[in-house]
């Protein structure tokens, strides 16, 4: 008797219908051999930008997706400064950073209460209908919803005061800013910042009371299913403290030792992109370690960015309350670095606290209302790189222009792109733990979602979907390549 095996080609040319697709291949024992997480990507951005004036990028890139326009705006602003070889005045940098802290508070709050919160505060076994922000409000307290709305309102107010608009800032130009902060605006911003600190402390306390005090949740966080030992990357300041807006890119190895620290313009010496035949997405990895596959360990060039990574690569937080929270974090989880992916949710709250404290520091800096907000560029534009930390990871904008400042080449590595390989690995591990001997456990979809939701990913299709309700199709194939099970959520 002959056995026939089916050759399956996963063809990236077929456009996905707007939902994510995971193909899981089982071996003869019915256990997971390989998984392939495919998502539609947004295409043609470089082609779209070539020929445009570089100063347009601060407005244009904030439209790449609706999730972190402010992060793209900042990276674009810094890249344009670099292209023109101009250093903005201190006040301009303070203003940009202040806007950025307000954005971080808004974004991290929304993510925690609407995305991460439902996984923990409500509980992974809770019925689907409760696993959303309403379930969180029910558990934490009725005033929580109002506080989330208030935090977002304050954040948007600050962004509007400094950036000219509530969500898509418009005031950064090469060499600095176009808007000065008035003392009246400054006072309002300071007051809102102080409220934000209290709110961040409240959020951390809720996490401790509800999540850390619950053994089942703690087991889930520290458990092996969601753990990977990889390299970590993040921006640090001159004291190696976490900084979202500026600094050097620091990478530590799986043991927490510094592997490299580089300046933005050198990124291409350290990051390369690996190509797989089954997806258009490329997988960044550390060039000087090399691509060894979707595997953990010191010999594998896979690295992760995320709030957890930023804490792992740093020597601490630059503000006192956040520093205390940082120390408690590592003491609880057994030291640095922390490899458990679900701890990203906790790290995110520590960053929320830092962003709020730094917001007040910046708002009370004596130079924040200075009228000196712009340095006129005098040098010819050539090429430049701008790097910031987006909430979901290190964001790199690299522009090359002609002598008139019109773009000839654009390369972006967005926050989530850094994490494509870790996301594949986390998805595979979650699937492997729930599919044994050909049997698929209930809750597979949710466990897989929990795996990649911790990264707060920015997928093309994900801009059209919601947490716990991301359109997703999972195909499970046996060792002969035959489809044995199909799980779908929110796919017609």
């Amino acid at each position, binding site marked *: 008797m002959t056995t026939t095996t089916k050759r399956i080609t996963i063809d990236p040319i077929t*456009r996905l219908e707007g939902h994510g697709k995971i193909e899981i291949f089982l071996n003869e024992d019915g256990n997971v051999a390989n998984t392939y997480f495919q998502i539609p990507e947004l295409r043609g951005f470089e082609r779209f930008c070539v020929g445009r004036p570089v100063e347009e990028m601060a407005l244009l890139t904030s439209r790449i997706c609706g999730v972190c326009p402010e992060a793209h705006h900042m990276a674009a602003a810094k890249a344009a400064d670099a292209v023109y070889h101009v250093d903005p005045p201190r006040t301009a940098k303070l203003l940009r950073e202040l806007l950025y802290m307000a954005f971080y508070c808004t974004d991290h709050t929304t993510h925690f209460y609407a995305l991460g919160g439902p996984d923990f505060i409500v509980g992974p076994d809770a019925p689907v209908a409760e696993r959303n922000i309403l379930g969180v409000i029910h558990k934490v307290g009725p005033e929580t919803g109002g506080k989330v709305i208030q935090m977002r309102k304050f954040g948007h107010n600050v962004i509007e005061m400094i950036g000219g608009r509530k969500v898509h800032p418009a005031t950064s130009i090469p060499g600095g800013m176009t808007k000065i902060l008035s003392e009246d605006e400054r006072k309002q911003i300071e007051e809102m910042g102080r409220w934000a600190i209290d709110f961040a402390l409240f959020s951390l306390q809720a996490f401790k009371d509800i999540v850390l005090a619950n053994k089942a949740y703690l087991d889930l966080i520290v458990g092996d299913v969601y753990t990977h030992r990889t390299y970590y990357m993040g921006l640090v300041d001159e004291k190696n403290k976490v900084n979202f807006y500026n600094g050097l890119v620091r990478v530590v190895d799986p043991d927490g030792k510094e592997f490299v620290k580089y300046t933005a313009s050198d990124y291409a010496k350290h990051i390369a992109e690996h190509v797989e035949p089954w997806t258009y997405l490329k997988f960044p990895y550390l060039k000087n370690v090399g691509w060894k596959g979707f595997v953990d360990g010191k010999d594998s060039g896979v690295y992760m960015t995320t709030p957890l990574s930023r804490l792992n690569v740093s020597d601490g937080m630059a503000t006192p309350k956040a520093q205390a929270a940082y120390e408690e974090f590592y003491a609880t989880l057994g030291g640095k670095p922390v490899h458990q992916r679900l701890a990203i949710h906790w790290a995110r709250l520590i960053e929320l606290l830092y962003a709020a404290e730094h917001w007040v520091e910046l708002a009370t800096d004596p130079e924040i209302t200075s009228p000196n907000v712009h340095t006129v560029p005098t040098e010819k534009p050539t090429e430049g790189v701008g790097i910031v930390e987006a909430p979901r990871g290190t964001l790199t904008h690299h522009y090359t222009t002609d002598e008139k400042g019109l773009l000839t080449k654009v390369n972006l590595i967005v926050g989530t792109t850094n994490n494509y390989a870790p996301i594949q690995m986390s998805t595979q591990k979650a699937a492997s733990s729930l599919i044994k001997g050909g049997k698929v456990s209930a809750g597979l979809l949710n466990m897989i979602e929990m795996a990649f939701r911790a990264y707060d990913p920015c997928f093309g299709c994900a801009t059209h979907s919601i947490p716990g309700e991301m359109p997703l199709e999972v195909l499970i194939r046996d060792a002969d390549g035959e489809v044995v099970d199909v799980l779908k959520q929110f796919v017609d």
Partner: protein
Amino acid sequence: MKTLVIGLGNPILGDDGVGWVVAREVEARLGGAAPDIEVDCLAIGGISLMEHMIGYERVILIDALKTGRYPQGAVAVLRLDELAGLRHNHSTSAHDAALDTALAMGRKAGADLPEDRNIAVVAIESQQVYDFAQELTPEIAAAVPQAVERVMELLGVSPA
């Protein structure tokens, strides 16, 4: 009735920007003649979208829809309370909550929001929503006048 017309979508993502094109034409047609009708163009979903609705009694959302079930350019009018979850267009967002969840949260927090039966969605079936472009494809551009008429009908403003 204090009304907000919102064009939803990404203006640099090809047909994904059709909501903005329709909204701008609606605004031009109104010509400031209706003081209780405002028009806006947004690239958001979920909680952000809910927040923009605060203070209005009626909202009309205009958006590209990608079901793959209808011909390109088909225009549908749906009421929020007729739709469960709204998963395939911009009223949802990966980074916060579905619009219906966000509305529930806002109402719980005491925000002044329109009732579900006063929130309508004018949806245009589109496919080319993943490629960066500032223009609409011909089929979608051809659907704009029909979508504009549907919005004007909902607003109770008779066609010219």
